[in-house]
C-alpha cells in the first residue's frame, strides 16, 4: 500500500524532472534564439548597407584589382617591372645605376625592389610621381636622395611590387 504512494511520489518527481529539464533546454534555446535574432538584425543592417552602397563597394573591389599586377609568374612580373622602371627613369632623363630585387617567395604576393639612379632632382620627382600615380601596384616605401649643389643627385627608391598570379 505504501509502495503505491511512494511510486506516485516517484512519478511526480520524474514528471517534474522532465518538465524542469525541458524548461532548462528551452531557456538555452531562447538564449540561442535571441542571439540568432540579434545576428539577424545586424545582418539585415549589413544587407541594407550593401544594397545601398553596392555600386561604391563594387567599385572598391574593382579599384583593389588595380593594386595588384596580374601576371602569369613572378619572374615575368619582375622582368616586366624592371623594364618599366628603367623605361620610366630613362624617359625622364635619369641614369639607372642599379635595379635589384629580393628573391620571390612562394605563396607571397609581393617582392621588394630597389632602383638606384642619378640625374636632376626635377627628373627624379617626375619619375617618382609617375610611379606613384600610374602604377598603384608599385608601393613606394622608402625614398633616399643624396643631393649636390647643382640640383642633381643620386637617388634610391625602395618599393614593393604587389602582384597576383593569374593565367593569361
Amino acid at each position, binding site marked *: 500500500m505504501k509502495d503505491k504512494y511512494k511510486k506516485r511520489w516517484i512519478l511526480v518527481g520524474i514528471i517534474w524532472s522532465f518538465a524542469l529539464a*525541458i524548461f532548462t533546454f*528551452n531557456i538555452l534555446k531562447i538564449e540561442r*534564439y535571441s542571439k*540568432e535574432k540579434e545576428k539577424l538584425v545586424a*545582418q539585415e543592417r549589413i544587407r541594407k548597407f550593401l544594397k545601398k552602397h553596392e555600386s561604391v563597394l563594387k567599385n572598391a573591389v574593382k579599384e583593389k584589382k588595380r593594386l595588384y599586377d596580374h601576371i602569369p609568374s613572378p619572374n615575368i612580373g619582375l622582368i616586366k617591372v624592371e623594364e618599366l622602371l628603367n623605361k620610366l627613369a630613362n624617359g625622364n632623363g635619369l641614369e639607372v645605376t642599379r635595379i635589384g630585387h629580393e628573391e620571390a617567395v612562394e605563396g607571397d604576393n609581393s617582392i621588394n625592389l630597389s632602383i638606384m639612379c642619378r640625374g636632376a*632632382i626635377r627628373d627624379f620627382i617626375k619619375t617618382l610621381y609617375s610611379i606613384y600615380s600610374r602604377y598603384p601596384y608599385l608601393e613606394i616605401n*622608402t*625614398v633616399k636622395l643624396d*643631393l649636390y649643389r647643382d640640383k642633381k643627385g643620386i637617388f634610391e627608391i625602395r618599393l614593393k611590387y604587389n602582384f597576383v598570379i593569374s593565367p593569361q
Partner: protein
Amino acid sequence: MRFRAKKEEPFLFLTDKQLFVLEYDDHFKIKKDFKIEELISYPEPFQKELFLKEIRILIIPDYWVVTRFYPIATKKSSVVESFLKRKLPADFPDASDCKDFFEYFFYKQAEQEGIQVYVIQEELFYILYRNLFSAFEIEKITSPAFVWKAKLGKKIKDITTGLKIFMHIYQKSAYLCFFLDSYFLFSRLISIEEDYIAQLSYELMQSFRLVSQKTKKEVEKIYLIPKENSDVERLSETLGVEIINVSDQVELSSPSSEIVEKMGSFAFLKKSDLSDSAKFFYFSYRPLKELKEWTFFQNTGIVVGIFIFILMLMEAVYLNNIIPKIKNATNINTPVIQDYISAIDELLHHKEKPDPSLIIMKILACTSEKIYLQHIEIELGSPSSIGLVGYVSVFNVKDFQDIFSTFLSKIKKSFEYAQIPTLMDIDLKRAGEQGFNFKFSFEFNEG
C-alpha cells in the same frame, strides 16, 4: 471529485462468524461467503475471488464500534489526533490496533467542550484487516447503524437532536438503534416470538432504563419500520413514547428471506444508501487515510507537471522549428562581404600613403639660398618619417638661428600634423668658419 471506471464493486459484509461478498441487483445478493475461521488460516480463495477488484466499503457489526467522550479544549486536528493516538491504547488495552481505527467529532456534553470518539474495538477485525483487507485499500469501514442513521437523517431532520430510537421489525427479528444527538450509542438485535409486542416492550423498557442512566436523558421518539401497521399503535400504548411510522418515508429493497436471515436489517437497504451521496459515517484505516491526504497533492503534482511538461514540449518543438528558419534567413554572402572589407582596407592603406614627389617638393620649397640639403630620406608608412641632413651657410650663430628658425617654421607649416623638433633637439655642428651642419628627423601622418 473522484472518477471511477464503471466496474463491478463488491461490498464486504462482515459478521463475527462469516464474511459475505455482496452484489446489488434490485437488492443485495450474496455472491460468495467465507467462514472466518477458515479465512484466517486459508485466505487464498478470498484473495482469488477478489483479485484485481476494487472494494470500497466494508460493513462490520455495530457492536464492534464503541464510543467515548474526551473533554478537550482544542479544536486543532493535529493536536486531537496525537492526543487520541496516545490516549486510546491506554484506554483500550485489549484493542491493540485501536489507534489505527478511530474517528472523532467535536461535541459538547453537559456544557463541556470535547470530542466524541468512535473506535473499532475488536481483535478479530484487526487480524482480518492486517491479513486480508489491507491489500484492497478499503475506503469506508462502516456498520449498519451508521448507514441507517444517514438514510433516516435525509428524511427525518430531528433524529440528530435528543435521545432517539430507530426500530425495524422484520421477519423474526427487531433491530434497535439508539442515537443521542447526532451520534450512535449502540444497537440491539432481538429475536421475536409470535406475539412480539409484549416481548419488545419489555426489552425496550430495559434498554430505556439503561440508556437513561447512562445519558441522563429520556427517550423522546421511536422511529419505527413496523412488520405490521398495528405495531405502531400497540407499542405506543405499551411504552407511552411517541412512535412514528417511517415506512412511508424510507424506501426499502425486497431481499429474500435467506439474505435477511444472514444480514439482518441491513439487507433492506438499497445500493444508493451506500453511495458517496448517502454521506454515512465511516472509518478509514488511519495510516491509509494519512497517505491518502497526500493524494490530492500527488494528483495535482502529476496533472500540473504533465500540463507544464506538454507546454514546455510544445514550446521546445516551436523553438526547434523557428531557429533553423532564422538561420536560413540570416544566410548572407559572407565571402562577398569579406571581399568588400579587404578591398576597402587595402584601398584605405593605399590612400594613406602620401605622394613622395609632393613631400620632396614641399621640403625643397622650405629651403633658401643659405640652406643646402645634402640628404633626404623618406620612409612611407604609418606613421611616415622624414630625415634631413644639410648645411647652413652663415658666419655667426645669430644668423644661423634666424635662417634655421625660418626653415623649421616653413617645415612646420608644410607638415601641419607633424611633431617638428625645436632648435634645441636638433643635432648641430659647426662646419668650419662659414657654416653649420644639421641633422634631424620627424614623423608625420598626412596623406
